[in-house]
């Protein structure tokens, strides 16, 4: 900070400092805890201070997106480890819950592969049962990497129409995954009627 340089990384660090209160507020709301928010902020600081970037047009948005993605990475990690434990419990415990530490080394996780195949299956079905517009928008967006603006042009509908299609698609995908326990017991508590029973992956189709 004391140096007189205007390097890109330096500029981002400065920007991080300027927007720190807003980012902290965002991260606290996003993580649900001030401690986690500070951890993420530290992680951001380390990333931007070591990073050389190309020109960034909107630095503030860049930092918020980075913060959001870091929080998502953490959530993704939590979900994966939760899922892994559950799969092991189901396969090895034969219905009796063992602590993951108690069981033998599972070796190559064939069961995980199975779980992932089921995951893909669930998604395939969910996509197939989307309304036509939502399905098409989703395929363009996620499988063809086409931006929202261009999708609007291709489909001949408004930007907000595209947003609605995509939001519906996302909501349905989330529902399909939640219904087969992809977000674990903690997440299903959040959703009233679904709570209670232990969520399991759907078996064979």
């Amino acid at each position: 900070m004391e140096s007189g340089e205007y390097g890109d990384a330096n500029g981002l660090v400065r920007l991080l400092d300027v927007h720190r209160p807003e980012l902290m507020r965002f991260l606290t709301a996003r993580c649900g805890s001030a401690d986690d928010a500070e951890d993420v902020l530290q992680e951001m600081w380390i990333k931007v201070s070591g990073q050389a970037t190309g020109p960034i047009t909107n630095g503030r948005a860049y930092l918020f997106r980075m913060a959001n993605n870091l929080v998502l990475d953490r959530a993704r990690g939590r979900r994966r480890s939760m899922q892994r434990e559950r799969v092991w419990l189901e396969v090895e415990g034969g219905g009796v819950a063992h602590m993951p530490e108690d069981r033998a080394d599972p070796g190559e996780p064939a069961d995980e592969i199975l779980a992932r195949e089921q995951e893909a299956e669930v998604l395939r079905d969910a996509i197939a049962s989307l309304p036509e517009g939502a399905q098409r928008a989703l395929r363009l967006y996620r499988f063809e990497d086409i931006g929202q603006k261009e999708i609007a042009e291709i489909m001949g509908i408004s930007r907000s129409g595209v947003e609605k299609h995509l939001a519906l698609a996302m909501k349905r995908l989330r529902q399909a995954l939640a219904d087969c326990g992809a977000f674990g017991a903690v997440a299903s508590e959040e959703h009233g009627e679904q709570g209670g029973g232990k969520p399991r992956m759907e078996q064979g189709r």
Partner: protein
Amino acid sequence: MTSVNDQILAEAARWHIASGDDAMDWDAFTIWLEADPRHSAAYDEVALADGVLQEHRATLQDSAPDTAGKVVPLTAVNDALSRDTAPGPAGGGAEIVRPAFGKRTRWAGMAIAATLAAVLAVPQFMAPAAQVYETTAVSRKIALEDGSTIVLAPRSNLTVEGRHQDHMALSGGALFDIRHDPDRQLTITAGGLDISDIGTRFDVQAQDKLVRVGVVEGKVEVRSGSLAAPVQLVAGKGLSFDGRAGTASVAAVRSEDVGAWQKGRLSYDNAPLALVVTDLRRYAGAEVAVPDALSDRRFSGTLVIGDGDTALRDLAQVMGLRLGGRAGAWRLEQPAR
């Protein structure tokens, strides 16, 4: 699944889709998250589901019927939702020093205030587009929604962004008259300086990396990567910043001189000639070249803008310089002795 949860998930999905766009309104998203702790969990699930979808992309894509028709993928151009957190690992062996991040008490109050605000906040998914004001030969008065006003100097450019019109970028000159609002902090970026304020009256002149800030009322804070610490400027103080040299100096200013360009006067105290000439170009439309050898000569005094060339002649006379060239392409020269 209750309808409330369904509603939350629908909103979460819209936010997730909006976050893939550059126009994402992060402030409004923050307020939405703060409004209900379930919001963040719902958002996580939607975003994770999208992540799972992308993990399975190869598998799902193969079996996909071609509903898209003959669309050429625009891969390089359009990955709107970049999933990259921050490209690259931290540091190539560079020493990493952890800064001390702010105290928690500071945002605790903000969070409460924001929760109250959230009751009234209607989800707004796109931030208003940045407003860009550009002046030519005459100045222009800009009224912000909260009653604050800005007089933008001639030949200047001001960009106003943010849902609360609280992020601005200035090139040129402007006199700010900002109303006090405890919930908002205005930040103005100008020539490598960040100027923050909460309700005050001050003037900013920024050309390239030369910035001057003069405060008439209240207090502003000035930061820059090349300043070791933020500088607090109170009423009656002015700061001159040279971003190339990384230097800044604070001196007293007379409040009647701050923003006096509005009344057709430019006052200087020991200002480099290059800077005076920059102002004459902006305020008087006088095009004049200054040889490098003269650009650091100092000028103190007041120029009356008038028709431009008059001010230029006055300047040359006071400085003991000769005005060469012709109208539209003047040149300040050291007279031969």
